[in-house]
């Protein structure tokens, strides 16, 4: 296996450029930041629980990341792709049994209390490990956190835990909560989950349900002379067309997470004073995936899965459904994750004849009506693109004699049909790659340990060889060895097709040109925006 030699930064740049081919380049010269002003942003949902330490999801981060900070944030040019936040340094032990964090000095909570290693220890043991959806996995073997002094936290693991994983998980899973507000309370029901108290550049000021969230400047923020903005106002705009109109009418400054539909981007990009930016989502790449129910007799046959893979024209999907704002996928790890990406993963070229031949070989000849068999196809309703791809896949499968019956459900019904009842043959899902295959990717392939766990292996797929690789990687302390294992996982997954990766995409930000320092890190929309400023 060849070692991947291109540096992370070069590749990030190259992929960003690829993704951004239709976007306007942002002026690179430095300008002096203007202080003050209210930034108005579109919010399309109102999370029930705003606490990122409990619910690590983009909808929560979007607002909470300005108030509650993680130990480190993703960065385009920092070492290992990280920039310090509440921690200034981190090292893992050789044996993978401990990790030491040096914390930032002079940080205070919004209520004035000092931030210490006690807060980190409390958050890790009482929140991230037992309560957080992503942290449960990353910190599964965390046993204790030593706090020899207020600025040092030493994580102790019961089994070797790769520091590479911990490091990659820092931005998404390590939001630190104030111990003095949570200790001894019912953490999931604590009022501070709605009225956030953090160390971040902005304080949580007001929430008016159905209307807005208002954050205001933290005067005692540790960042020198930051934040630049006085206020951030999240305006609840559930209607997508409303977001585009509000940008044009200058009622909002910015809409992130593709709040403006892709079809409107070309038009709105032409409007004076508005920019379409596809950078800033490299750390949260979404993947368009065909989930396969391996309990279905036909789909348990590798030849059938290969035939389906050959029947999908990925480039057509990218050009037509994503209007170019995506990249054709080559495997389970996106190109945006150069640390793990294996360019030698086997590929399935678009080839209808080959697909037909494979199905014939598999023993499913066409009947008189031209069909070989019928499958239930359930596109996830979360994005326009997942639904549109459902329509495309139906046509593509018809070409090779598979009759796909689409069932369009709303999200709760889809959730139940696919993840609880397994009442599907093919489903279309948009999982997120969060910097490390162990966080949310290999869970899609490993033999299911529990039924009904959302966003995990739904198809009943089981491959002992793959399981062994995944389990070995989970405890592989050596980075090179771990990376090699994941390279191998990608190859095995491509050969055996537990699921089919079709495309990978980042979201699009649409902003007024009066907003500066937009999209300057790989998780920009969910980072703290302390350096963002607007023209006075």
């Amino acid at each position, binding site marked *: 296996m060849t070692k991947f030699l291109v540096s992370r930064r070069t590749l990030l740049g190259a992929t960003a450029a690829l993704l951004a081919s239709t976007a306007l380049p942002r002026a690179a010269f430095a300008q002096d930041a203007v202080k003050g002003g209210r930034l108005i942003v579109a919010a399309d949902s109102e999370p029930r629980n705003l606490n990122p330490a409990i619910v*690590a*999801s*983009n909808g929560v981060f979007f607002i909470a990341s300005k108030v509650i900070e993680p130990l480190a944030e993703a960065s385009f040019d920092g070492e290992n792709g990280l920039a310090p936040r509440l921690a200034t340094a981190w090292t893992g032990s050789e044996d993978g049994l401990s990790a030491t964090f040096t914390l930032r000095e002079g940080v205070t909570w919004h209520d004035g209390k000092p931030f210490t290693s006690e807060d980190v220890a409390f958050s890790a043991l009482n929140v991230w490990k037992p309560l957080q*959806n992503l942290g449960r996995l990353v910190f599964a073997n965390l046993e204790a956190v030593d706090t020899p002094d207020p600025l040092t936290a030493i994580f102790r693991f019961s089994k070797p835990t790769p520091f590479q994983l911990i490091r990659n998980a820092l931005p998404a899973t390590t939001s630190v909560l104030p111990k003095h507000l949570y200790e001894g309370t019912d953490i999931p029901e604590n009022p501070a989950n709605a009225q956030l108290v953090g160390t971040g550049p902005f304080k949580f000021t007001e929430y008016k349900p159905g209307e807005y969230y208002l954050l205001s400047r933290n005067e005692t923020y540790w960042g020198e002379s930051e934040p630049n903005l006085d206020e951030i*106002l999240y305006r609840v705009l559930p209607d997508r067309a409303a977001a585009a109109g509000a940008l044009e009418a200058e009622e909002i400054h910015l809409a992130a997470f593709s709040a403006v539909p892709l079809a409107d981007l070309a038009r709105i990009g032409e409007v004076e004073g508005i920019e379409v930016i596809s950078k800033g989502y490299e750390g949260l790449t979404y993947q368009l995936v065909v989930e396969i129910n391996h309990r279905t007799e036909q789909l348990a046959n590798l030849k059938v899965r290969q035939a389906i893979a050959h029947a999908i024209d990925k480039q057509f999907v990218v050009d037509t459904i994503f209007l170019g704002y995506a990249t054709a996928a080559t495997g389970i790890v996106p190109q945006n994750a150069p640390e793990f990406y294996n360019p030698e993963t086997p590929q399935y070229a678009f080839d209808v004849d080959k697909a037909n031949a494979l199905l014939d070989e598999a023993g499913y000849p066409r009947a008189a009506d031209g069909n070989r068999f019928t499958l239930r196809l359930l596109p996830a309703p979360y994005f326009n693109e997942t639904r549109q791809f459902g329509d495309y896949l139906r046509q593509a499968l018809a070409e090779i004699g598979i009759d796909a019956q689409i069932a369009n459900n709303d*999200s709760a019904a889809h959730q139940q049909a696919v993840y609880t009842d397994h009442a599907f043959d093919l489903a279309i899902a948009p999982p997120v790659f969060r910097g490390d295959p162990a966080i949310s990717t290999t869970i899609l392939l490993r033999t299911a340990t529990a039924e009904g*766990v959302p966003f*995990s292996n739904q198809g009943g797929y089981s491959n002992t060889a793959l399981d062994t690789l995944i389990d070995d990687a989970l405890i592989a302390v050596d980075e090179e060895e771990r990376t090699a294992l994941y390279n191998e996982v990608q190859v095995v997954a491509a050969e055996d097709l537990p699921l089919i990766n079709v495309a990978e995409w980042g979201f699009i930000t649409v902003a007024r040109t009066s907003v500066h320092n937009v999209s300057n890190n790989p998780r920009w929309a969910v980072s703290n925006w302390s350096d963002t400023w607007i023209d006075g």
Partner: protein
Amino acid sequence: MHRAGKLVLRRLVGSIPVLLIVLVGTFFLLELASGDAVDAYLVSTGGGDAALVETLRANWGLDQSPITRLGLYLWNVLHLDFGYSVLLNRPILTVVLERLPNTLLLMGSAVALSFGIGSLLGIAAGSRPGSARDRLLSIGSLALYAVPSFWLGLVLVVVFSVQLRWLPLSGIETLASGKAGLDRALDIIRHLVLPVGALALIYLALYLRLMRAGMVEVWRQDFVLAARAKGLSRRRIVWRHVARNALLPLVTMLGLQSATMLGGSVVIESVFSIPGLGRLAQEAVSGRDTPLLMGIIVISAVLVILTNLIVDVVYAFLDPRVGASEASA
């Protein structure tokens, strides 16, 4: 007013079974939809493991049988306790009462405006049936009636907010503006112009056509002929004899419309991002938030019953024959 009092009392008592049927019906319709609040919650948060799912189901009372939950719910409603919203994690009564004024303001002004202008235009059209004025108004109203409200809303937004920038594009007031008193009232009025306009223009057509049809009908009746034979002025005949009688179907319509207010407001509230009851109901459905949706439905049903009661009283006032038999029975 003894007669009206009896009428009101009978209607109020009669509405209790109606409310019960609405409640039970809604509950079981929602039961039929696949997926529950926990499923919807997991989608919005990116998932969790089986233990979390179980804990949530238990905490939100979703592990009990539907009958138990319905019984418990009805018992609580009897004590005016509508429970907690699963989606918003706040008391339902608070949430609903918070949103209700926005919807009432929006729909109330739209209905009042369309009723007022629509009936006047209907009188204008129906006072000389077949005239050029009548035909112009009829065609215009048909065209308006054919337009979907969301489309009209979007067109108004593009023209008046995006292009001309005369009016705000969305919301019910300027957010976190610190305005109070008259300033705030004016601000709300400015925000209401477009959504109320979009709704009122469509209802207006409805009232115009109803009024015109009623006028044409009444013109042909004997008492109008008699009035004309007496040599009364045209103006007096139109206003005193024709219009008053033609108004009755409009009042009926007004009552019926109070029931569809919620449905109509879903679309307009979404397009204009107004935090009203319609949008809340839509969110409750997609979040499988049964208690919230039930709360909204119960409170809307009470509103509909009250509106219809008022309409009935007005009707009895306009036409003394109405309600007499019911009150004396």
